[in-house]
């Protein structure tokens, strides 16, 4: 699996009103990029657009992968609530994609992934009996088993407590290292720890900020370069809020 890069350009419309004009976004192949911006600017809308999900929006322009292959069936998505099936076991949740397509569920692979994500012995638990962090790890296992080269993460860790969030970021960075990841986040620290490029979104367009690659992700949260970059990002976001 070689992950393609993504390129997206044009005007994004929500129903009959323009949401973001003059978009020109690049998501480098096999890297993490993040979308930052105030609430309602259209981050999640862009995520849905890349994933090919329906909605009251439309892109006047194009969204292409660098290898020219259609993105259909190539994108996996993981969101804040994890979207687990509450009635089904953890193992069933992880293998739901194969069931929905009519393929044979690869339970051996699912168990291996669960073990790798620290969920040994939980295969037959229901999501309701798990903690928030455990549920997000199940959702991550389900995302990974789909083996999609492009992954959209829509604020996947924002409902977790600080320590669990850091652990989940480390885990996700390790497990999704070779894929093209679009990370939608509110959290500048998360952006700096995980992404190589940040896109600051406003209604006028998107501005790229290359994050200092002092170390490969996940970067340490107490590292000077990380903290300096976090401060810079916060200042920029604050400036956008005021404008």
């Amino acid at each position, binding site marked *: 699996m070689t992950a393609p890069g993504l390129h997206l350009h044009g005007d994004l419309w929500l129903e009959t009103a323009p949401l973001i004009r003059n978009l020109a976004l690049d998501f480098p192949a096999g890297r993490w990029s993040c979308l930052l911006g105030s609430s309602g600017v259209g981050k999640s809308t862009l995520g*849905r657009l890349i*994933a*090919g*999900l*329906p909605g009251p929006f439309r892109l006047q322009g194009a969204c292409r992968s660098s290898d020219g292959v259609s993105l259909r*069936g190539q*994108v*996996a*998505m993981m*969101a804040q*609530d994890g*979207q687990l*099936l509450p*009635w*089904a*076991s*953890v*193992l*069933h*949740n992880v*293998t*739901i*994609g194969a*069931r*929905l*397509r*009519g393929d044979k*569920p690869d*339970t051996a692979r699912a168990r291996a992934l669960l073990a790798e994500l620290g969920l040994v012995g939980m*295969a*037959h*638990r*229901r999501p*309701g*009996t798990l903690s928030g962090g455990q549920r997000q790890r199940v959702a991550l296992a389900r995302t990974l088993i*789909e083996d999609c080269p492009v992954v959209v993460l829509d604020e996947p860790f924002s409902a977790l407590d600080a320590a669990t969030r850091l652990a989940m970021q480390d885990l996700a960075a390790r497990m999704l290292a070779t894929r093209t990841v679009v990370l939608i986040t509110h959290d500048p620290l998360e952006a700096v720890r995980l992404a190589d490029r940040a896109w600051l979104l406003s209604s006028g367009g998107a501005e790229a900020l290359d994050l200092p690659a002092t170390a490969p992700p996940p970067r340490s949260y107490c590292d000077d370069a990380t903290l300096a970059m976090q401060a810079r990002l916060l200042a920029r976001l604050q400036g956008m809020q005021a404008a």
Partner: protein
Amino acid sequence: MIGAFGAFLRGLLALGFGLALWQGVVWASGVPSFILPGPARVAESLWANAAMLAQNARFTAVNLLTGLAAGVALGVATALNLALSPGARLLLRPMLIFAQAVPVFALAPVVTLWLGYGAPSKIVMVMLVIYFPVTSAFFDGLMRLPAPLADMAQLMRATPVRRLIWMQVPHALPSLASGLRLAVVYAPFAVVIGEWVGSSRGLGYLMLMANGRGQTDLMFASLVVLAALSLILFLTFETIIGRLARPGRKGRVG
């Protein structure tokens, strides 16, 4: 265990109070027994007519359960079909909504005219009455799949049938249960109305006959048996649903 026994005692107490009140009204008002027989007299009639009551109750119960099973099966099949096929939705859904506005009980004479005085007209009455609540409750549940799950199904390239089996049906089971609860409550009404309109057997027939002959105590005895039948049906249903929906049940699938 003590809790269950306590609940039983409380139920017994309430029953005793109700019976005492009933007897009290009979004594205090002095109404003749062909207007309102006291509980003792009804019990006597129950005992004296036990064989006849049992025979007619059996006829009623069999029709009730047959109609219930057939109506539920038909309702579930219709809902699944509607959920899968936009064409069926376009054609059948307005009809379904219109049919709900028709008081189905009013169709009893027509059903009896078409199907005769025997068991089929009672079975069809039960089916008609419960079909719509079961269908619409289950169908609503099937169509109300949460948006995040619908997104997931689309991203995972689910086929429509598998999406139905693995997502919509499990999600709609609580809705189906509330439709079934209505069915279980309505079904005894339906079968008795079917028997009132035209029958030569069953508890509804027995009530009409006893009423016509001034055997009010027998009429009340039939009513007691019918109430017991409905109560048993409802409690059985609640027990089964309670078992199935018990939280923390181990994963059956996967």
